[in-house]
Structures are given as C-alpha cells and as structure tokens.
C-alpha cells in the first residue's frame, strides 16, 4: 500500500530503470527524395497516453504507419518491447490502429466489425461473443450491435472503430486523428471517454492530433513535430510552461514573442533590451547566455497583470493603451498597444459581472509580470 503511494506520479520517462515499450532509433523515412521523417529518436513507455502534435503534413501519420507496419523506415530501427519489428508484417504485430477515416467494414454489422479481429486470432470461438459484448459495453453501443455502419451516427462509428481496435487487447493502440470528424462538444466528451478507457484497459495509446488543446487534455506526454523532426517531447505542463523553442511556444496556446539582446545580471538572471525607450525585461533563465546574445522572450497573456497604476514591486512593467477587448465569457483578453507600436495581450478572469469591469477602450494601463513569468528562448 505504502509503495503504491509513491507511484501516484506517473513518469516512467524520468525513471532510468523503466524499459520503453517502443523505441525509435535514428529513424528516417523518405518518399523518393522527400524526407517525411527526419532522424527521429523517441521512447514511449507502457501505459502512456502519448500524443503526436504538429501541423498537417509534418509526418504524424507516417510515424504511425511505421508503427502499424504499413511503412518501413528507410533508415534506423523501431523496437517494440526491445525487438526490431522491421520484418514483422502488420497482421502479426501486437499493435492495432484506429484509422483516421475509421475504415469500418460497410458490409458487416457493428458486432461483426468488432469481432473481425478476434475471429482472425487464436481466441476460441466460445470466448469471442463475450469479448465483443465487453467491448460494446465499454463504448456503450450494446443496443446498436446489429446495425450496419451506415445506420449509425458519426460519433457512434468512431466508437465502433475504437472498440474494434481495442478488442484484441493490443499492447499498443494507434489513434490517427480519431476525433477529427466530431463537433467540439462531442469531441471533448470523447476525449474524457478515451482517457477513461485508456485507464481501464491499461493499453499504451499513441494519438495523432493537430489540435493542441486535445493533446494537452488527453496526453501524459506530447511530442511536437515540425517537418519530420521532433521539436520537443515533454509533459503537457512542461510544453506549455517551458517550451524549448519559439516554434513550440507559438504552436501551443497564445503567446507574445519579444526579440531582444540579453545582458547577464548573475545568478541566472538576465536583462533583455528589446525596444528604444522601454525598460529592459528582467527574466530568469537556467541555461547560461553570453552578454549581447540574441534571445526571444515568450510571455503568455494569463501571466500578464493589468492595472491602472504602476504596481510598486513588479519586476517588469510597461505602460500602454487598450486597443481592443475580447470578451470570452469566463475570461477577457486585453490587447494593449505600447508607445512603439508593439502590442501585448493580458488576460484576466471574469469573476465580476461585466458592468463592473474596471477598464475600457482607450484607457491607459500598466502591464506587469514577474521575472519568472516568461521564458527566454534562443531559437
């Protein structure tokens, strides 16, 4: 019991004793002269919910298809539980895939779609019905077992596809943009359902998405991809709070990137000169920077406070004029223009009623943030 308590934080990637279930070792995939996957090294651990995030065409599907066995790496090796899977055909891999288009068999009922993989396995006939029922219950589709795919809704089809790919209890489940076709509300519900199912079945999930919110919601770790490369692999919180590059910072959530030159103040503190007539930004940065090096300072709107007077003890404060206010219900975003024309966004929670809001258009305000609020990036 006491032991379990220490395991409550799930972070096998930080534990050098853990063996990854999947390892990519310098994997490159080319289509002709086009490099779709560019020298990737990646470890994915058992029971992880791993998200591949990136713009369309960055190679997410290709990476998945290599895991499923539909593409072979041009260079490098992929290991599943320590064994090279290059020679293992898709039908022999303990990996199942939920296709972007669902790929449900239109001539089979929901029941037979789910049973399809089981009938091809060495599961005894007598156990198949029970397993299918179990899967139908898991995705709440018992009533629809006898329907054909064209007789059920999009959301139900997506759940059939999920049940079908889970039925064989694969070691690894690949989900290629599984929620792409659903509307926002259904999507959010399904995200939680997915997390629930992943927890219940203990399967390792690798999910592809181009929706950063989705990746942040479901994943234990996120890999941000760009043009066939992994830019950053980290937990959603790390990706959000400490992105390793402007690309990642920009891709995830809203951010203001300020270019400037750094001057060390000692003790991991720096001053960043960024605009004529503006006070230098004070920021903390653990990687050492030389004096005068070019840096990018990334600051997120919710880290910026907005006040009428200059706060006394703020590490950073700038004066500006409210250009625009975006009211988003639970929060408001203020677009504040600085005297040099740049604009910075500040976000505040709307815990008061609209009528009692303190600022309006054209008001002169102060924006302030602490020295640890932003991130200093070198690329």
């Amino acid at each position, binding site marked *: 019991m006491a032991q379990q308590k220490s395991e409550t934080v799930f972070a096998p990637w930080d534990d050098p004793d853990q063996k990854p279930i999947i390892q990519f070792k310098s994997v490159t995939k080319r289509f002709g002269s086009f490099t779709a996957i560019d020298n990737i090294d990646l470890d994915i651990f058992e029971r992880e919910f791993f998200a591949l995030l990136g713009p369309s065409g960055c190679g997410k599907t290709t990476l998945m298809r290599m895991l*499923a*066995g*539909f593409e072979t790496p041009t260079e490098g090796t992929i290991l599943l539980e320590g064994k090279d899977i290059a020679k293992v*055909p*898709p*039908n022999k891999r303990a*990996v*199942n*895939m939920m*296709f*972007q*288009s669902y*790929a*449900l*068999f*239109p*001539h089979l009922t929901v029941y037979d779609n789910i049973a*399809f*993989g089981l009938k*091809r*396995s060495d599961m005894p006939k007598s156990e198949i019905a029970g397993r299918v029922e179990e899967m139908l219950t898991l995705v709440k589709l018992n009533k629809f077992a006898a329907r054909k795919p*064209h007789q059920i809704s999009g959301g139900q089809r997506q759940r059939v596809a999920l049940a*079908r*790919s889970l039925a*064989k209890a694969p070691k690894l489940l690949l989900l290629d943009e599984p929620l792409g076709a659903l509307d926002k509300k259904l999507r959010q519900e399904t995200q939680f359902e997915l997390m629930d199912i992943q927890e219940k079945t203990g399967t390792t999930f690798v999910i592809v998405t181009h929706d950063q919110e989705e990746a942040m919601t479901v994943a234990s770790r996120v890999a941000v991809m760009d043009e066939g490369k992994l830019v950053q692999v980290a937990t959603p919180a790390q990706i959000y709070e400490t992105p390793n590059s402007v690309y990642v910072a920009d891709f995830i959530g809203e951010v203001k990137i300020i270019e400037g030159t750094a001057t060390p103040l000692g003790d991991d503190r720096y001053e960043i000169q960024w605009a004529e007539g503006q006070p230098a930004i004070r920021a903390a940065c653990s990687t050492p920077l030389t004096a005068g090096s070019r840096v990018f300072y990334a600051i997120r709107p919710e880290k910026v406070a907005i006040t009428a007077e200059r706060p006394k003890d703020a590490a950073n404060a700038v004066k500006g004029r409210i250009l625009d206010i975006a009211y988003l219900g639970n929060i408001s975003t203020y677009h504040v223009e600085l005297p040099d024309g740049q604009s910075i966004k500040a976000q505040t929670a709307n815990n008061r009623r609209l009528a009692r809001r303190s600022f309006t258009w054209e008001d002169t305000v102060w924006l302030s943030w602490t020295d640890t609020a932003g991130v200093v990036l070198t690329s």
Partner: protein
Amino acid sequence: MNIRRLFLIAVPYLWLGALFLVPFIIVLKISLSDAAISIPPYTPTLDFSGGWEALKQFFSKLDIENYVFLTEDDLYWKAYASSLKIAIISTLATLVVGFPIAYGMARASDEWRPTLMMLVILPFWTSFLIRVYAWIGILSTEGFLNQFLMWIGVINEPLSIMNTELAVYIGIVYTYLPFMVLPIYSTLEKMDASLLEAAEDLGCTRTSSFWLVTIPLSRPGMIAGCFLVFIPALGEFVIPSLLGGSQTLMIGKVLWEEFFNNRDWPVASSVAVILLLLLVIPIILFQRNEEKNKELEL
C-alpha cells in the same frame, strides 16, 4: 406550371408506351392469332371499320393454341433449357475473366487507368458483326489459333472449335466482357484502400483480406455485371448462329427460324413472349440489386 410538370412526367411514359408497350401488345396479339398464307401472314387482322360486332368477332378468334403447341413440341423446351444453360455458363465464364481485369484496372496507377478503360471500351467502336466474323477467322480449322498452336507444336491436328458450344461461349464472353468489367471496376475503384489496411491490421493476410473484404464489397458490381451479361445472352441470336453452327440450340435461333424460314409469325411471337416472361424475373432481381446498392450509398 402544372402543364409543364405533366408534360415532363408524361414524356418517359409516352416513350415507354410507344417503344415498348405498343410493340409488345402487337407481338402478344400476333402470338394469339393463327398462321395464314396472306400478307401479313396471320389472321385475324384488326379492322375498325366493321364497328362493334367486327371487334367482338376479332377477339373471339384469338386463342392460346400457339402456346399449347410450344408445350407439345419438345424442340422449344430444349431450346429454352439449352439457352438457359449457355447463358448461365457464359455469364460465369465472363465473371471469371472479367473480375481479374476489373481488379487490375482498379489497382493500376492513376495515369494508366484512362488507357485501360479505353482498351475495354475500344471494341464497341467496331461493328459487332465484324468482330464476331473475326472470331470465325481465329477459331476455324485453318484459323489463326489452330495455326499458331500447331506452329508452336502443342497440337498436331487442328482443334475443331468452330461450330461447337465452346465457340459460342468464347463469343459471348468476348462480346459481353465490358458489361462485366465496368460495374465491377466501379465498385472496386470506390473501395476505400484503408479498409484493406484495417483488415491486415486486425490479423488478415493479403489473401484473406481479399476474400473477406474485397469480394464482399465488390459483390454488388459482380451481381450487376452478371445480369447485364445474362439478360442479353439468354436471347442471343447472332453469336450462336455464326459461331455455334447447326448443333447449338438457342432460343434466339429458333425464333429467327420460325419467323423467316417457317414464316410462322404467331408461333414465333409466342416464343418471343415466353422469352420475355423468362427475362422479367432476372430484370426485376437486377433492379432490386441496384436499388439496394443505392440505399447503401446514401
């Protein structure tokens, strides 16, 4: 507005009425008449000038004795049965030949498909009759096929293919192949390639995914193709009479002989009416198949 709509609805009915129903009623009427040495070669003929009495007399002279005659002479039964056999066998043969062609076309790369499609349709640009005559040149005792086989030494004696049922099968398969290939191709081409990957992902080999996914999904195309071949093959006349010789018995030939050799229009018409009734069954089944497919696509 209403008149225009009425007109639009009426056009296809008028078309069907003029080109199908009226000729059918004429043939039906002739089949109920008696043969006669006159022009036209049957009685009674319809004469409206005689008024109501003449019309009554006209109808009283119609009878079904030609149909009774068809059941008495076993030539007709045998001809129907033999036509049915030839049509079924050649339909299946066309399916066996046509499916791989359609499959190959559907799997070909995008730049090849139009060319392959052209090659399938190309024979339609030549007269059907000339193409059947060309087969005589290929299949006859001194034909290209025998010459070629003897030249490479497979056979010493020429094969006698001409004037056998085999020649008829070859002729029908050749002629109706596009009707089989095109519907199968269109179902295979529509098939989502990820279905095959999904089948493999779930444990199928290439072969089993073919039998479990490709074949069931192309079934509507195969059924459509079979009907499109079977229906015209059943009443086929040109191919059996040019390639099948005197031994091959098919109802189309019997029909022709009754009309032109015996000049027995009433019997010929009753043969035609029975043939049509035989064809109605597969035509209805074909329509059902098409409607079911449409529903599936919605």
